[in-house]
Structure formats: structure tokens, C-alpha cells
């Protein structure tokens, strides 16, 4: 079960403050990287919601990123919807696609679910790639940004834009944190732990899976609408299945089923990629090695290891304070997660 523990909240707050500071202090390229991190963080935390908490490991998450981006583009550039409204409306097809995918795959589990989502993602990718109305392989350029000059905010200022993206990421984090502590979140974790039992207890499993898939898709789509405004451009490349794979890597390297871990993972992978590509073009190799080492080291990821370490310390401390033999089993937030 998810609890917004002190450690989690502290790390989240720290990252948020660091993001805001970076938005104003970093160089231009630093701001680019910051937005990239925030976008991946949105994808990673929503995938963690689905895969880590809900047990639905998806390789089609990038498709929603693309659906959100393209929906925003179609609405603003073809239908003439004002950008702010388009951002909200673009989430509708994302939720709908996620919900449908959830319904259709509700009986599909494990590797079959991975394959089903991969197929879904590839179908959306191929459809967009071949559809000349949607710009085909070249995508669509000239995407407008939302205009908040009415309230004195200039989204074309890189610092303001980066700051807005960090705030948006923070809000989405809070929303998912809240959803995970809600009845629905509890139910989702229960479904992950034991779907059969949930069914036996009288739950209509598929609606919950559909909802989880829809919510994760909405968040990924939201990231897509931001990405479209950030680069002022959308292309089918957004939806490549390897993007989904990279997001999954971030989730794992950060810490599965911790919500904040994937954000850490996104920052880590993006920064690592940029650092490595300073001196070699073969950054794939190093990410691959990191990933394998992280998995062989227990698969808790960076934040997950920190959390486990802190839990061990506090346990030792409380054991010392209590008389030997009187210790009761601790509630272990990591239990069943290793």
C-alpha cells in the first residue's frame, strides 16, 4: 500500500525546489534538460502508478504521450480550439484510449499484457506514421504554446516555461499521490497483489483496470501536450516503443512502487545520458550496463535502496530502544516489493 511517508515527501519537496531553482538559475541548455526531465518524470510516475502499484507492466506508454501531443496539435491547429482549452480537451482521447486498452486487456496478464500493450503502441505509431493528414513521418511543426499573458505570464520565456512544467509535474505528482491513498488506490494495489482474491471478494476487476489504465494514459497524454508545446512540434518518434522501454528503465532505476522513485530515475537517466554523451556517442552502452547492474543489485533502484536503507536504520534503532525479544514485526513499506 502507498503511504506518502516523510522520506517520500521530503525527497519530492527537495526535487521540486531544485527544479524551480534550476528553472531560473540554469543555463539555456540546463532549462532544456530540466523540461526533458520533467516530461520523463510525468511519464515515469504515471507508468509506476500502472506498473508498480497496479502490476500492469506496459510497453505502450509512449503511445499516450503521442496521443496527447497529436490531440493538442489537431485541436489547436486544425480545430482552432484555444490552447488552454485544447490542453484539457486533449486529455479526453488519452483517457478514452487508456480506458479502452484497460478493458480489452483486463484478462491479459504478465508477459501477455506486455505484448498486448506493445502491440497497441505500435499500432498507434504505425497509424500516425502512415497518416499524411497527421504529417506522416515528418510530424507537425509550428505548434502554439498556451498564452497566459493575460495574467502576466509569458510562456515563451524559457525560465517561465520550465518553471510551469516543474509546477505541473509537481501537481500531477500530488494528484497521483492522493489517488494512491484513496479507496481506488488501495483497491489497485490489492488487484496487483492478488487479482483472484479481489474477484472472489466481489470486485468487478475490469472496471478498475480500465480506470487505472485511463488515468495513467491521461497523465502520459498530459506530458504529451506539454512536449508538443515545448518543442512546438510533434512527430511519430514520440511513440516509438523504445521510448516506453526507456521510461520503464527510469521507473526501475529510480525505484518501482514508490511514486517518487521514478522521478528520481527520470532525472538520473536524463542527466547521465547528457553527461555520457559529452565524451562518447555510445551512451546506450552505459545505460544498458547501469540497468543490468541495478537489476542484479536487487532491482530496488536508487530511491528504493535509500528507502530500504532508512527503514533498516530505524528498525535497528527501535530494536535497540526496546527490550530484546519484545520486538514486534515492523510494518515494512517495501514488503513484497523486493
Amino acid at each position, binding site marked *: 500500500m502507498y503511504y506518502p511517508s516523510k522520506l517520500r515527501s521530503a525527497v519530492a519537496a527537495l526535487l521540486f525546489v531544485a527544479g524551480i531553482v534550476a528553472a531560473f538559475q540554469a543555463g539555456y541548455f540546463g532549462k532544456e534538460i530540466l523540461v526533458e526531465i520533467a516530461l520523463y518524470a510525468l511519464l515515469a510516475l504515471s507508468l509506476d502508478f500502472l506498473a508498480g502499484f497496479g502490476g500492469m507492466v506496459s510497453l505502450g506508454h509512449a503511445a499516450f504521450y503521442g496521443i496527447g501531443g497529436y490531440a493538442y496539435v489537431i485541436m489547436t491547429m486544425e480545430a482552432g480550439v484555444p490552447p488552454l482549452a485544447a490542453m484539457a480537451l486533449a486529455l479526453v482521447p488519452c483517457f478514452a484510449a487508456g480506458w479502452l486498452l484497460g478493458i480489452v486487456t483486463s484478462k491479459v496478464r504478465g508477459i501477455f499484457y506486455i505484448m498486448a500493450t506493445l502491440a497497441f503502441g505500435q499500432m498507434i505509431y504505425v497509424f500516425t506514421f502512415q497518416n499524411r493528414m497527421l504529417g*506522416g513521418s*515528418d510530424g507537425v511543426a509550428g505548434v502554439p504554446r498556451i498564452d497566459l499573458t493575460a495574467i502576466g505570464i509569458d510562456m515563451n520565456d524559457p525560465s517561465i516555461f520550465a518553471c510551469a512544467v516543474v509546477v505541473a509535474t509537481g501537481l500531477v505528482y500530488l494528484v497521483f499521490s492522493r489517488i494512491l491513498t484513496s479507496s481506488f488506490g488501495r483497491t489497485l494495489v490489492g488487484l496487483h497483489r492478488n487479482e483472484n482474491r479481489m474477484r472472489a471478494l466481489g470486485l468487478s476487476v475490469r472496471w478498475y483496470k480500465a480506470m487505472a489504465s485511463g488515468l495513467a494514459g491521461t497523465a502520459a497524454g498530459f506530458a504529451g501536450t506539454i512536449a508538443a508545446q515545448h518543442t512546438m512540434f510533434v512527430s511519430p518518434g514520440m511513440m516509438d516503443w523504445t521510448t516506453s522501454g526507456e521510461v520503464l528503465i527510469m521507473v526501475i532505476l529510480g525505484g518501482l512502487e514508490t511514486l517518487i522513485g521514478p522521478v528520481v530515475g527520470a532525472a538520473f537517466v536524463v542527466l547521465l545520458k547528457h553527461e555520457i554523451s559529452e565524451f562518447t556517442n555510445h551512451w546506450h552502452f552505459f545505460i544498458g550496463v547501469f540497468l543490468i547492474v541495478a537489476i542484479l543489485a536487487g532491482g530496488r533502484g536508487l530511491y528504493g535502496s535509500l528507502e530500504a536503507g532508512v527503514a533498516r536504520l530505524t528498525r535497528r534503532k527501535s530494536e535497540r530502544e526496546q527490550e530484546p525479544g519484545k520486538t514486534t514485526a515492523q510494518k515494512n513499506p517495501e514488503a513484497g516489493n523486493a
Partner: protein
Amino acid sequence: MRKTFMASAVLAAALTLPAQAADYKVGLLLPYSGVYASLGNDITAGFNLAVEHFGKDLGDDTLTLVQEDTEVKPPVGLAKARKLVLQDKVDAISGIVSSGVLAALRDFVHQTETPLVVANAGNDQMTGERCSPYIIRVSFSNGQVNRPMGPWLVEKGVKKIYTLAPDYAAGRQMIEAFSKSFTEAGGEIVGGQFTPFRKTKDFGPYLTAAAASGADGIFVFYAGGEAIGFVKQYGEFGINEKMPLYGSGWLTSPLYVGAEGKAADGVITSLNYSPSIENPENERFQKDYMAAHDRAASEYAVQGYDAGRLIVEAIKASGGDKAAFKKNLSKVKFSGPRGPLEIDPATNNIVQNIYIYETKVAEDGSTSQEILDTVEAVRDAPNGCQMN
């Protein structure tokens, strides 16, 4: 990857009297990882060779290069372009292999008024309806390379053609340009297909269909790995014995023709460059490139070479005035390995010769290109381009 290259000369300073000296910074934005990495490396090698050849007498001016990897991902390309312009404060960007990256960059360079010297990406629109005074293309447009083949084939008695190309923007533009000029000249397109891009490895089904179409020949656009697979399979099915193969020159690029084997023999293609062009510039270019890299320079390398030369010549012409440099980029004219080049003021696309050549494969497997015809000074129609 970031490599810095300095080229400056003190010697020339005494001879000329520039009004002022300027330190130029140029960003090379190319794929150094991913599927187009080899193209990025060739263009960079060509660019560096041009700086070596022509950049020795810059006077008090200096030229610094900053390399950035686009990974063939438009968002990455745009992020790197922003970094180059906003952080490194480059005076111009050069490179760009894929049209997708070019499309992503177009508005940004236009708005920031950063000159972009395109060294490969051929999307027609970028020097057509979406042209910009800041986008100067020294490579080619997709239409430019393919248009001359239409009338040429009709003249040689080829009346019916079957077309094949990968299903993406460039593939479609190439085939459309050819089909238009071919039918206008009196030819007939009897059929054709667009094959799923980078998902088609087995061309058997398409070749079988082409062979059964009753055409006089096949016209295709394929590049890289797809070109190798296509030409080899064309030979395997024995179609080379009854139906000639035509296309845009990447099909039989010197980079890949060795791997294509006997099947490439007799394939006739058109391109803006062939290593066998005979002029002193090409001789020098090929010789020095060979000395530095131990292989013949490709059509990508020559584009990098000419992009580099264009930038260097513009610097020389500007006397340390950066505003003049921006304007001079599109005014540079020279005769290079590809023959005479100039930038069309109507579109900012290059005006250049297109070479129609036949690939010859000798018994020992060595390949050569025989230029059959040179279509001089091919210029694109404005296609809706309005410079402002």
C-alpha cells in the same frame, strides 16, 4: 559529443585590412548515434576538410565548431539547437540529416534569425512553402535530384515505369517529383507502391509485383541498408535480366554499392554528386579525403565539404561584420567538387548540376560510376516560397 575545432591564421592579418575581427562560432548539428550516425560522421569529416582547405586565411577572424548529436530524434535535435543558439551563442548552425529534425527546427531558427546551412535533409517544403531566409540548403531538395530523370528516361525510350519507395515523407516527395516530370514528358507510371519504412527487409513480394506489371523499368528511392537489400534482391529474382532499374543515386551510393554485388551493374541513377566527376576541385577533395580517412568521399561528405566552404567563404566576404555574414551566406558562389554552385535567392535552395550515371561492376567485384549525362544548373520552382 563536443569537439572544438579552431582555425585561425595570423599570417593573413598583415595582408588584408578588415574593419574589425570577429570570432565565429558554428554549431554542427548531426546524428552521431542511431541509424544515421554514419551520415553524420561523413558530413563532419567533409566539413572539417573544407575548413582545412579554405579556412587558413581567415585573417583576424576565428572559427570555432561545436558538435552536437541529434540522435535522429526531432525533439533532441531541437533541444540541441536551442542549446547551440541560446547557450553557446553560435552564429550559424550547419548539418541536419533527417527531414524530421529539419521540420522541428524550422520555426526556431526562423524566429531566432539563426542561419541554418542544411547539409543533407531534402524536404521540398523547407525551400518551398515553408522556406525561410535563414534556411540555406547546400545539399539538395528531394524534387531536384529526381526531376531530371523523368524527361531523360523518356528520351531514352523508356515509356512505362513501376515505382517503389519507402513510405515516409522523403520517399513520397522523391517519387512524386519523378512521376510528375516523367508523365509530363510523355511517360506512363503503370504502378507503384510505398513500402513500410525501415520495416521492409524482404522486397520479394514487391519485386514480384513489379516484374509482373509490364513496365519497361523500375524507378526507386532507397538508401542505406534498404538500398543494399533492395538491389541484391532485385538481382536474386533475376529481374536485372529483363527490367532495368533506375532511381535516385543513393541507391548505388559508393558507400553501399560494394555490398550490393553484381546486381548493381547497369543500374542508372541520378544524384547531385558522383566521385567520378572530373574537375580539379573534386580531384583534390577526393585525394585529401582518402588520405585522411582511407576511403572514398561519399555524397554526404561532399555536402559537408560544401557547407563548410560556404560558411568559410561567407566569413571571408564579411570583413568581421557578423550581420553581413548572415546575409553573405546565401550569396556565396563557387565551383566545387560538384561543379558550379549557387544559392537560389528565390528559395535559398542550391542550384547545382544533377549527374545521371551508370554503375559498373567489374568481374572482380570492383565498382565504378560512369557519368552518362549532366543536367546543368537544376533549379527548383519557388513552390510557394515567400522569403520574409
